[in-house]
């Protein structure tokens, strides 16, 4: 099992799927000649040519719609939106065309597109390049939403998303493209539904996804070493649908839940996980679940303010200690 970077894992999935099926294409801004802002398609323009590695004009809604239209006829487009902030411009085609066409055609037409995009606060990119949008996508019937927290997931989720017959939105992260991790040497298809227990624990469950899995893991180490608290970490790599059984199972074991999300709390992943806990295993709880979330501010430019606007491992530790001490 080789250790590769997150971007290399995404690139490898592109390469394998494009080599296998001539109808798999990739499209997006600067992904071809320039090799991609995050190198996800590096070198593939030379290998597959301009018909299949397509540098699009800066027309997010219509090039997304173009990919959806091509998918009606069997093409399998992997569409890169350079920043999830730009996905707002493509919401019409994602929401009104890709997610609804199977239903409103009575099952005749499907839009098996993959839309990849990085969200998240990175390094002083300002309010219009730092948003988290997963909460918007996960409430859309007909759309799958996954979010890889490591290179293995980045590779395996993209492989499965390309082959799945549903439209899949893959929420990546600006800060994670250079993260290293082990990826199977052979072909690997990650399930598009479910969750993963990243760390076993007995005292509290920390639910994270994407980058907040890493904050949760750091917090769990601190809690174990400094406070003797064994936290379980659950990676919610599938945001739509959320893994009800996995959430129930972990809370039934630890009886406490903290949801860690980089996004703002309202109408978000944490709110949804809390609702699921209420519905599935309310009487298992020893404490009221809490969310560790971003502040309700447009992301500031100033570095100190920027860092203060989103949670970190310390915030998670503090939330757990407060919950367990009851103070």
């Amino acid at each position: 099992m080789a250790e590769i970077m997150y971007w290399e894992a995404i690139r490898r999935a592109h390469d394998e799927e494009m080599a296998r099926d001539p109808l798999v294409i990739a499209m997006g801004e600067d992904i071809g000649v320039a090799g991609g802002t995050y190198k996800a398609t590096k070198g593939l323009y030379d290998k597959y040519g301009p018909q299949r590695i397509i540098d699009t004009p800066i027309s997010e809604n219509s090039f997304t719609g173009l990919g959806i239209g091509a998918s009606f006829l069997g093409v399998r487009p992997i569409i890169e939106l350079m920043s999830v902030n730009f996905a707002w411009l493509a919401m019409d085609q994602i929401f009104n065309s890709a997610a609804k066409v199977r239903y409103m055609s009575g099952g005749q037409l499907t839009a098996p597109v993959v839309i990849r995009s990085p969200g998240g606060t990175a390094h002083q990119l300002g309010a219009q390049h730092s948003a988290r949008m997963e909460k918007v996508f996960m409430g859309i019937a007909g759309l799958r939403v996954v979010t890889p927290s490591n290179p293995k997931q980045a590779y395996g989720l993209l492989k499965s998303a390309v082959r799945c017959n549903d439209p899949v939105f893959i929420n990546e992260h600006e800060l994670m493209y250079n993260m290293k991790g082990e990826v199977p040497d052979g072909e690997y298809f990650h399930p598009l539904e479910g969750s993963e227990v990243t760390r076993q624990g007995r005292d509290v469950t920390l639910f994270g996804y994407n980058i907040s899995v890493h904050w949760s893991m750091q917090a769990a180490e601190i809690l174990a070493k400094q406070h003797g608290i064994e936290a379980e970490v659950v990676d919610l790599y599938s945001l739509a649908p959320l893994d009800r059984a996995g959430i129930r199972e972990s809370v039934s074991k630890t009886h406490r839940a903290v949801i860690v999300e980089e996004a703002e709390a309202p109408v978000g992943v944490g709110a949804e996980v809390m609702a699921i806990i209420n519905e599935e295993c309310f009487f298992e709880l020893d404490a009221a679940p809490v969310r560790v979330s971003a502040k309700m501010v447009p992301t500031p430019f100033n570095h100190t303010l920027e860092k203060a606007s989103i949670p970190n491992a310390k915030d998670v530790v503090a939330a757990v200690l407060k919950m367990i001490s009851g103070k």
Partner: protein
Amino acid sequence: MNAADKKRVLREMLFARRFEERCYEAYVERKIGGFLHLYPGQEACAIGVMEAARPGHDYVITGYRDHIHAIKCGTDPKAVMAELFARETGCSKGRGGSMHIFDVEHRFMGGYALVGGPFPLAVGMAKAIQMKGGDEISICFLGDAANNQGTFHESLNMAAVWNLPVLFICENNLYGIGTATHRSTAVTDQYKRACSYGITSNQTDGQDIDQVYAAAKVAVDFVRSGQGPYFLELMTYRYRGHSMSDSGAYRTKDEVEEWGKRDPIIILRDRLIAAGEITLEDYQAMDKEIFAAIENEIIPYAENSPEPKVEELEKYVLAENDPYVKGGVR
């Protein structure tokens, strides 16, 4: 079109007129719900263009005024009426409705209800055709008001940059819902706007099917021969309001009457009578046959079809048992 073709398209246009008028009645009787956008006045557009193209072979996509486009592509009118009646036997299984007629078997790729939404989908289908190397073309029918959406500009640009086999048909009926084109649009000749993207374009009379056919033939041949996209503007008029909830009060009686004198069905009928191909009696007999077919076959089929089952409410949201949801098959 030879004389036999012309007689057939006369019948198709008359059928389209009577079909839509019957939809109007069914709506008033509350047998059809939701929004209903009708086609009377514009029949020569869809029927003339598709006569020049290859229905069932070329991929067609349009907006919400879509019943006749589907029927011309080969969709059974009974399945369209059943869809309007929201039945399981409808072409979209009662899940789509008037604005979302689909018939993939006949390559009618759907009616969409976001104005301008089909532009990029049509260009995407053309991209797929280009990749697969087929001789089909992608045909996108929309109204003049759709050209004020960003998707018009973005999509025409991409179609031109990549030389894609897509034919844009603009049915210019002079109004975007209730707003006259000149009140919303700086350049009211829509074909001129396609020139911004270096796309070959033309404008013709949309009420005379012979002219529609001739212009569409040139356009279809151009696109099919690999010369890239083409934009054809057809000047037309819808007799009724935008939808059933629109009385059309923003138009003068004189204007409506003037356009009524250029009715596409009457123009072709009188031309065929003058040429000695049919008599007025032939036409009246044809009308009676159409009326009987609608009343005796199409309406009863829709009315007597079952509604979708509530137990199947969530069917068609996602693929069923897709193996990759669980991590694939080995």
